[in-house]
């Protein structure tokens, strides 16, 4: 399988990344990032990354471990503010509003840009309280019945309601891993965000739970804009419409998922998704 690559006549030994290849930008962008640099102290984790998250689409961020996917994702709802040494430069916009601008309240931003984490992290509260947490904080429900309704619809959307409807008052930590992750998704949907960020949401789950979550993502994209970090190439290929490949803190290639997985333009992408030495 050696010859195909060489047949592409790629020329030199060291592979340069200057600017992303593919189509990082789109007309219908929910979030657009331009020339983003992220530093941890003196250590630069993200180098000059620019791309768009298309509205009502799933964008997968893939790349080798440590390439800065999580770092980048966490910039999108300013979770990086929690790390004192983390410093973000460049322009990140949500519907044209500057995320790191003075006008932006990170607390409100995070209600608009929700996040689902790698490890399911339900609060040590009941299932009901877990989902009701966000709506309560943001005052989304005026009375109990309204809150009940939000909880139910969120759990339904996350495909969990039927499994837990008889034990809403039991602790969320008592659910299985896959159920916990769906609970976390339900919790995130409950505050009706506009964008959902997912950092390896299925990495701790078995294939069935994974499939359920993937199906869920597929449905969620009707309403939300989704960015998902995953280490599973197959998963990225299955759930996303757009794929962005990161390498050493740089965006190497971005484009339609189909194209990336059948015919990537950049050699690094090719190497990564086909499991070759970089």
């Amino acid at each position, binding site marked *: 399988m050696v010859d195909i690559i060489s047949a592409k006549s790629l020329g030199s030994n060291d592979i340069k990344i200057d600017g992303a290849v593919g189509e990082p930008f789109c007309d219908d962008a929910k979030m657009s990032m331009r020339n983003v640099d992220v530093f941890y102290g003196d250590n630069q984790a993200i180098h000059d990354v620019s791309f768009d998250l298309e509205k009502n689409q799933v964008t997968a961020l893939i790349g080798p471990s440590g390439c800065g996917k999580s770092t980048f994702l966490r910039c999108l*709802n300013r*979770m990086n503010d*929690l790390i*004192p040494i983390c410093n973000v430069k460049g322009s990140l916009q949500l519907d044209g509003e500057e995320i790191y601008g003075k006008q932006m309240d990170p*607390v*409100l*931003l*995070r*209600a*608009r840009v*929700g*996040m689902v*984490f790698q*490890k399911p*992290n*339900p*609060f*040590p*509260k009941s299932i009901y309280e877990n989902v009701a*947490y*966000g709506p309560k*904080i*943001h005052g989304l429900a005026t009375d109990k019945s309204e809150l009940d309704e939000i909880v139910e619809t969120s759990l339904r959307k996350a495909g969990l309601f039927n499994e837990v409807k008889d034990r809403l008052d039991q602790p969320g*930590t008592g659910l299985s891993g896959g159920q916990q992750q769906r609970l*976390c998704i339900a*919790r*995130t949907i409950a*505050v009706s965000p506009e964008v959902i960020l997912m950092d390896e949401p299925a990495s701790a789950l078995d294939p069935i739970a994974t499939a359920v979550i993937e199906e869920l993502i597929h449905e969620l994209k009707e309403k939300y804009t989704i960015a998902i970090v995953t280490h599973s190439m197959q998963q990225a290929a299955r759930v996303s419409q757009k794929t962005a490949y990161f390498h050493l803190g740089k965006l190497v290639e971005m484009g339609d998922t189909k194209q990336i997985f059948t015919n990537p333009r950049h050699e690094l992408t090719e190497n990564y998704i086909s499991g070759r030495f970089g």
Partner: protein
Amino acid sequence: MTTANLVFIVMLIALASYWLGIQRSIKVAGGKQQVKDLVSLPSQYGLLTAFWCGIPAILFLLLWSAIESSVIDSLLIDKVVLSADGQIQQNMGLIVNNVKLLAEKITLSEDISSATDIQLQNAQFFIALNEKATWLKTLLTLVIAVGCVSTILAKIKHSFHARNNLERIVSGLLFTCSGIALLTTIGIVMSVLFESISFFSQVPITEFLFGTQWSPQIAMRADQVGGSGAFGAIPLFVGTILISTIAMCLAIPVGLMIAIYLSQYATKRIRSIAKPMLEVLAGVPTVVYGFFAALTVAPLIRDFGLLIDLPIAAESALAAGLVMGIMIIPFVSSLSEDAMTAVPVALKEGSLGMGATHSETIKKVILPAAIPGIVGAILLAVSRAIGETMIVVMAAGLAANLTFNPIESVTTVTVQIVSLLKGDQEFDSAKTLAAFALGLMLFITTLALNIAALKIVRKYREQYD
């Protein structure tokens, strides 16, 4: 040779045998290159040899020292009895002591002119005996040390598992150490328990537990007025509870706030300054807190009381409680901080990621998640407060008032124990024994609190690991 010197020498031998063991194992292996053929490392053979040399010898020394004096004494008594025709049985102890004193004088070549011949003879006998014993001890110790070393050296072969042997010795040592602590605890409990039982044979347990009068001083002499004595411990319990409550009222909120601040808000720099300061607070001797309470806080409170026309006792429960509260702040804060830091970052991020503010996150996620740890911390602090002595001794007074009024003088269990035991004691009077009964109560309470705290803390640990 003195025992200390002997121990030193045994150590030296052990050191030498360490080296010998290494050399021997290398030789057995057939050179430095073949060492890897051995089942254990040369240094392990060395250590094993050293242990085998040191431990039996020192054990022997310990045993010898334990029985030496009694054996010599009995030999001496036999001699004295022989020389004194048996009519001085009653004063035997005194005579033996005299002989020992004389012997000491002789060895120090002091003036011995006043001694009788028999005494001198006995003293000489004693000195000789001692000398013999010392020689025997030295000889035997060395023989044991060297004997063990040579046995073990002879045993070193290719297939000799020094590693496993060493492991056994080490675990034995560790077991012995923990055994010492355990035995001590059991000993303390037993002594307190037996004394308490004998107290309860004099004073009915119901009176002790439910009586509301505490005046043990009067009970000392039967001819005094009110000589019946009163051992109702309720005032003491109430005083203890009062002062502990005051202390906890101060320590819990302040400690928790500190914990929240340090674990959630403080920057690294502030934490690096504040944490050691808190630890200093925990390290201040309680007697210093006692000064502080008695000389600074109590007068301050009284002056303040005068200002608002409120008569406050010089030794008020308030002063003692407040200072005690300050003292236990670090206990509450550091353990609660640990509990809060142990709450997974994921939970915090989960909450913040949904648009909760920092304080909402703390209130609704972090505190509930850390509550078991915090409760554990508080229980430990309470048991510390109940057992605290110095501050209350100095600031709370001795009057056993049955009151819940914080500005009056009260006394606590620990204070009473101290006052019952200070001065001359007779171990059969109810007064002294009462101290043990109080001690037992205290012990049971703090033990229960500690067990509860540990249980809670352990349970909470399982949640996240």
